[in-house]
């Protein structure tokens, strides 16, 4: 056990020896180490967000033919640090009539809901919080906490726009959880375990090769759940001002901001871990630092794809978002699950190559069938063009239109 083969284990053993050397019982030392490890991991995630926000702003700037932040530090890399210092000294404006407990709890829960997931993310073979045996289920459950934060923010703000934004957000997010959970069953099925580290170890070949459609649906559902463009109806500026976080100011708003960016990165890690082989790569079993590098490369590719989607695609309408989920992704996810289970079981006796080819062929057939169906329905369902007449009246209450 050296620094290069098991850095965390080494540090852990050394600190444990130090603490027990001071006369502390073994259990207490262990718990102190857990708290220390948790603090390092969670703080690391929060600090890392500072860098992520800079990266995203810089890249989005480039996509839009601007420079992006370029004043503070080389390439503007300390811009977010400056922003953070500023936002720490901004006043909290609490609107009249706000329901104070949900109002103040919401930003905390939003960040915490994303941070929870980091406890189980494997960055390398032995660089992880804990390889929980129900890891996938834990990730899904933790994701729901962030949604709770949103609805609390909308409800507590005493603002109609915030409430409408929160309703939309929750409607969209709980909907996209259904195909996400269904497609997550596919890697669990191939692995025979819900531990994320076990899922990584079982990827030979990567699951994106044997289940490309499931990977695609999982990816889109995760982006939709993060409520980023093109799914950012929850904060549609032209309709709802800012959505559920309209009444927040200072660091309370900053927390929603942090949560969004951290969430974008967390879903990139999750996708890399579950479908792109995580830390797998030449030499990664022996040298975890190499595994960490592979995870980060894969994560960066996924993160860049998310940014590209944000920069390049226009916003969906709410009915399109809901239809995409309930009328395409959910039935398709059920179909994928059935076909994958049956095909994989029937080919279990053959060599792995034939199994992979069979699964690929099944996915291809499903894709073609889906495209065919979409074409048929698209021709049937063109919306009639509405010509506005002079007598069109605006309703008295704006909330009737938006709700």
């Amino acid at each position, binding site marked *: 056990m050296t620094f290069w083969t098991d850095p965390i284990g080494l540090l852990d053993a050394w600190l444990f020896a130090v603490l027990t050397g001071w006369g502390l019982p073994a259990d207490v030392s262990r718990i102190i180490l857990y708290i220390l490890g948790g603090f390092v991991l969670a703080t690391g995630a929060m600090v890392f967000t500072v860098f992520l926000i800079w990266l995203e702003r810089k890249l989005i700037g480039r996509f839009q033919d601007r420079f992006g932040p370029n004043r503070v530090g080389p390439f503007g890399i300390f811009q977010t640090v400056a922003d953070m210092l500023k936002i720490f000294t901004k006043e909290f404006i609490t609107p009249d009539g706000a329901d104070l407990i949900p109002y103040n709890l919401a930003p905390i829960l939003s960040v915490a809901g994303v941070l929870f997931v980091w406890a189980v993310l494997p960055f390398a073979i032995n660089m992880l919080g804990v390889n929980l045996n129900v890891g996938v289920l834990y990730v899904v459950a933790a994701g729901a906490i962030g949604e709770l934060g949103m609805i609390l923010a909308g409800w507590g703000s005493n603002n*109609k726009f915030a409430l409408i934004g929160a309703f939309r957000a929750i409607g969209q997010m709980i909907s996209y959880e259904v195909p996400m959970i269904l497609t997550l069953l596919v890697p669990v099925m191939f692995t025979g375990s819900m531990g994320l580290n076990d899922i990584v170890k079982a990827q030979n070949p990567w699951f994106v090769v044997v289940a490309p459609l499931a990977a695609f649906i999982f990816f889109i559902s995760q982006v939709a759940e993060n409520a980023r463009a093109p799914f950012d109806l929850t904060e549609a500026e032209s309709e709802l001002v800012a959505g559920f976080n309209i009444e927040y100011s200072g660091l309370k708003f900053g927390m929603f901001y942090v949560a969004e960016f951290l969430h974008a990165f967390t879903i990139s890690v999750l996708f890399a871990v579950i479908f792109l082989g995580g830390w797998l790569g030449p030499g990664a079993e022996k040298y975890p630092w190499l595994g960490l590098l592979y995870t980060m490369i894969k994560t960066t590719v996924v993160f860049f794809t998310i940014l590209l989607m944000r920069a390049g695609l226009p916003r969906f309408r709410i009915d399109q978002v*809901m239809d995409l989920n309930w009328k395409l992704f959910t039935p398709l996810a059920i179909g994928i699950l059935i076909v994958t289970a049956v095909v994989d079981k029937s080919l279990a006796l053959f060599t792995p190559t034939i199994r992979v080819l069979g699964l690929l062929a099944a996915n291809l057939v499903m894709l073609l069938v889906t495209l065919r169906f979409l074409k048929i329905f698209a021709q049937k369902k063109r919306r009639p063009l509405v010509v506005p007449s002079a007598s069109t009246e605006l309703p008295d209450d704006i*909330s009737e239109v938006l709700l």
Partner: protein
Amino acid sequence: MVNDWVYIGLFILISLFLPAAAILIAGWLAPKKPNKIKNSTYECGIETVGDTWVQFRVQYYIYALVFLVFDVETVFLYPWAVAYRQLTLFAVLEAVVFLLLLAGGLIYAWKKGALQWN
């Protein structure tokens, strides 16, 4: 095994503590100068009319119900997925029947118009 859950429990407490501590520190550093106009509800400069906690569209409720059905039924599939490697083809087909029931529920909700946004 139990140690795993101790770690998770501690990690959850830490994740809640970090943003809470940040907000507390910011509240301590930030100025506090509230006034009537500043604290009023922001709805594009127009005075807010009536109660905020209005009745909302029943559509959201229906989506939530459909979600609940699917979520709960899908959770039942996770033990099956974990045991999948050891199962025979017959047991897999039984799960397929369960999934087809799920699909039947989806089609029913679809035909009833529960998935129609208007």
